[in-house]
């Protein structure tokens, strides 16, 4: 079943992005070298960047359609987004960060759900801290929890491990695997690291110079990383 259908074009300075792909459930890897336009594509799905042409649909709901003049604003898309740099709210505690999506949607508190996700990500002991005092790995786990607790229809992860050192990467990757197997939210996982994607992705879209060059299974992840392929 197709969950996400993307067909977008955008001129970004001298760079032309023209990407078209579909994603089923599970974890879709958006794989390609740095500068291939991966983050731009994800920003368009989230609604933070507006394509010049094309359309984006999620679960049969049109989020964007240039021809029809449809543009659902980011706060109405219910798409969770884990940024490369976490982007936790510095003036709120971890608990308030996690709770932010629920508060904005006006849903009542659900302690069970909160407990479950805090346990899934092992962040229960961090709840009263400020983001400033977290390690890189803790910060990214909180960012994932924050995105999950808004009950997203889709989870976007943009190089969520890129800002971490090798040790922290090893520490956090199992949580993503757990997330894939337990949370049941379709994900788009952006990375240029084949090794990381091999652990977590279920299908692969390869992006290069603003175009989708291949889509399929894990065999598209070559032995080397995308940056080495050029």
């Amino acid at each position: 079943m197709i969950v996400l259908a993307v067909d977008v074009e955008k001129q970004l300075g001298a760079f032309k992005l023209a990407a078209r792909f579909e994603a089923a459930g599970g974890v879709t890897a958006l794989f390609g070298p740095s500068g291939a336009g991966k983050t731009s594509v994800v920003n368009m799905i989230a609604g933070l960047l507006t394509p010049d042409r094309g359309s984006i649909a999620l679960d049969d709901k049109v989020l964007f359609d240039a021809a029809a003049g449809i543009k659902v604003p980011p706060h109405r898309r219910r798409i969770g987004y884990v940024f490369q740099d976490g982007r936790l709210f510095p003036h709120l505690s971890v608990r308030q960060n996690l709770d932010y999506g629920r508060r904005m949607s006006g849903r009542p508190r659900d302690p069970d759900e909160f407990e479950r996700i805090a346990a899934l990500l092992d962040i229960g002991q961090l709840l009263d801290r400020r983001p400033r005092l977290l390690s890189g790995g803790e910060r990214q786990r909180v960012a994932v929890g924050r995105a999950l607790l808004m009950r997203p229809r889709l989870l976007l992860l943009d190089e969520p491990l890129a800002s971490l050192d090798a040790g922290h990467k090893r520490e956090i990757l199992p949580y993503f695997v757990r997330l894939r197997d337990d949370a049941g939210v379709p994900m788009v996982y952006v990375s240029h690291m084949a090794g990381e994607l091999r652990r977590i992705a279920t299908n692969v879209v390869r992006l290069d110079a603003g175009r989708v060059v291949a889509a399929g299974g894990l065999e598209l992840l070559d032995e080397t990383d995308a940056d080495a392929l050029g």
Partner: protein
Amino acid sequence: MFDLSPDEWTAVLLSLRVATVATAFALPFGIAIGWLLARTNFWGKTLLDGLVYLPLVLPPVVTGYLLLISFGRKGPIGAFLDQNFGIVFSFRWTGAALSCGVMGFPLMVRPIRLALEAIDRRIEDAAATLGAGRFLVFLTITLPLALPGVIAGAVMCFARALGEFGATITFVSNIPGETQTISAAIYTLMQIPGGDAAAGRLVLVAIVLALAALIASEWFARRAGMRFQGE
């Protein structure tokens, strides 16, 4: 603590009331204008920027004169407000608050604008993806992050309003109990023989109030800043 006469107390309390009201009414405008200058681009922005800072560079007597001809009873805005809402500025303490607010406004807008410009817009994007519309993002993310600047701006405006003299006396004159603030009272006392001692007492009060405002702003700004560091 201060051996003030009832008339002197009246001037001190009036000054505090005028400065508080001026700051409270200026604050929403200060935030709105600061936001416009920090975040938007529109035709005439340079003009608005200039207008906001004008009271800082104009002779205060000119600002007072302009207020008189526009907000006075016969001025277009003053007459309109009087007839439709019963709000009168001329020769009232409300007029003193208006002129103090106008004079303090540039000092208020500047730190607010700088604080808004310093905020990482990507944090606001993150809030949007979590379901917050633009106004909620402003209320829950932008404003709290800009709080140290907002407080600094409010205190600067308050301190300026406490000391305002030229524009106020030009606009609403120097009426004891109505528009005679500390500055105006000191000026009056210095005109009468033997008023030096009383003037000196009020000078002392002015210094203490100004210092207290500065210390309070420092304390608030530090507390607001502390929230980002973690306890």
